[in-house]
């Protein structure tokens, strides 16, 4: 049924669609210069980019491998600090002096990649002992890891309080290297988009291969998986590391959009949108085991956050409603409870949105033919 040719056709359709969208975006980006665009839309785009990568990468572990990790932000923190420090180093070493030069963008890309790699290396160190444990134990260990990472970073002279958080390095973060202002964010918006696409493509290639089947089998039944010849611990650690790599990249993007870094941003829970539990919320809402679901829910949760932050305040609603929304995490907690109790599979479950199937579906509708519904499995 599904042979190589139909799959290749699918890749082609997706690539063309993405290329068209990207071109359209670039044209828009060059000509569209309202304040809303550069002050609201573009920064949101950056935020959504790393949220999507975060949610999708956690989904590899949570939805496909079936292990609850509560320390995903720890890897993000590693990526963020590594990227920031490296780009700072590049700038101080005089590798780039001008933010328009191509060498600047190359050094930014190198910094992001380095952040991902270091996160992956830490992922190996954490994953090997941690993944011997299951379920609740793994959750607690990863949570502890997330905290220890922040603890360690805080105690590093060049990264913690005297470094990127509040010290001398932080001040220059904005002027140099990472920490894009709105102009740079607009200029380099394509970087965020392309990186997001590449990361997601790499995750899709992973799950739609023998590796993806192997980890899904571990999720469904570990004992049966090993009785089918799957090296369970190897695949577990491998997936954990792969996921950590992308969290590191997302951390680098995060560092790109912020003028300074503080480990408080990467805590287990905190008042802001970004923390390890929030990523879990995104994955659950989108559907554990659906990368497109994670993308969708990252966008939705971002919008929800945006509405809570900006619209409710300005809406002139009764004070007590406004007060309720002053603490967005309360809203997310309620969203999470409702989803898990009434729709535990999330929006998409384990299905993936597929452009080809959707086109087929629409064609079928138009041609009044009965074609099976979209979503390839």
């Amino acid at each position: 049924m599904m042979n190589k040719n139909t799959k290749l056709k699918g890749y082609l359709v997706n690539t063309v669609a993405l290329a068209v969208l990207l071109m359209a975006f670039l044209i828009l980006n060059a000509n569209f210069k309202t304040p809303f665009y550069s002050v609201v839309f573009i920064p949101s785009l950056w935020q959504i980019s790393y949220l999507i990568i975060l949610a999708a990468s956690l989904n590899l572990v949570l939805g496909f491998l079936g292990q609850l990790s509560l320390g995903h932000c720890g890897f993000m923190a590693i990526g963020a600090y590594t990227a920031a420090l490296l780009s700072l180093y590049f700038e101080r070493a005089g590798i780039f002096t001008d933010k328009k030069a191509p060498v600047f963008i190359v050094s930014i890309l190198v910094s992001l990649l380095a952040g991902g790699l270091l996160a992956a290396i830490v992922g190996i160190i954490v994953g090997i002992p941690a993944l011997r444990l299951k379920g609740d134990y793994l959750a607690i260990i990863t949570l502890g890891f997330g905290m220890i990472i922040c603890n360690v970073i805080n105690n590093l002279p060049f990264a913690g309080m005297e470094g990127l958080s509040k010290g001398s390095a932080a001040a220059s973060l904005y002027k140099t290297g990472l920490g894009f202002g709105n102009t740079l964010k607009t200029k380099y918006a394509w970087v965020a988009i392309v990186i997001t696409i590449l990361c997601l493509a790499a995750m899709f290639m992973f799950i739609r291969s023998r590796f993806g089947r192997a980890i899904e089998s571990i999720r469904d039944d570990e004992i049966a998986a090993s009785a089918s010849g799957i090296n369970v611990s190897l695949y577990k650690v491998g997936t954990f590391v792969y996921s950590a790599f992308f969290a590191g990249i997302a951390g680098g993007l995060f560092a790109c959009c912020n003028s300074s870094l503080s480990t408080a941003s990467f805590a287990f829970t905190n008042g802001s949108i970004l923390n390890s539990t929030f990523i879990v919320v995104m994955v659950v809402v989108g559907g554990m085991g659906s990368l497109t679901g994670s993308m969708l829910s990252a966008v939705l949760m971002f919008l929800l956050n945006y509405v809570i932050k900006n619209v409710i305040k300005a809406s002139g609603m009764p004070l007590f409603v406004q007060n309720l929304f002053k603490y967005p995490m309360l809203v997310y907690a309620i969203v999470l409870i409702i989803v898990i109790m009434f729709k535990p599979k999330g929006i998409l479950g384990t299905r993936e949105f597929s452009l080809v199937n959707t086109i087929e579906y629409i064609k079928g509708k138009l041609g009044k033919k009965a074609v099976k519904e979209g979503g390839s499995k």
Partner: protein
Amino acid sequence: MERTPVLKTVNLGITFGGLRAVEDFNIEIYEGELVGLIGPNGAGKTTVFNLLTGVYTPTEGKFYLSGKNMNGKKTHQVVAEGIARTFQNIRLFKQMTVLENVKVALNSKYEYKFFASLFRTPKFWRKEEELDKEARDLLSIFNLENKANYIASNLPYGQQRKLEIARALATGMKILLLDEPAAGMNPTETAELLECIKIIRERFGIAILLIEHDMSLVMNVCERIQVINFGKTIAFGLPHEIANNQEVIEAYLGKNED
């Protein structure tokens, strides 16, 4: 000339806490043989399978596959060497499709590197295509090929059992351990199962060790039978010998004076 048995155990045993679930288990199975392992509930049959597949580590004894010692190997290593099994309580990959269930077990046979999948190299496509073909072939033995895209947990019970056997076959084993494959099946399904076992033996020529409570099935298909009770072997021999063995009858029916 001596033939090496496909599977040989020497005084294999395991103790859980104080309970000696299996002790002094000795068996030799040769290529192409179908041997039955029977015994009352809780006798230790499934535990033997768990020992042979590295799920439990034996506390005593050794076991060999084609002369090679298997003690201390992890489950996936034992499987790679050639011992495949099914489970008493069906353990399918419930959220995956029927086809994917089989493909998982073919994972190490059609190997390609991570980068091949990342860049979708020709090797990736070739391997995936071969893999797809073999998986469908295996399904067709069990008449499951037209259900390839069903979610495994949506299959009727009898077909789930068959799918589990198909998955075990996909690992490319020398010996297949079947744990009560006919449990919960109706007579037609059991008859179909017998047919499948026959086809498997013809096509793959492998050895099979079968746990089964259905006596008529065991007596029909097995060439030799080994009986255990409270972890100890109480009899072994040809089916008609077992059927008339006093100790076996007592084990199943209870002693008369009790």
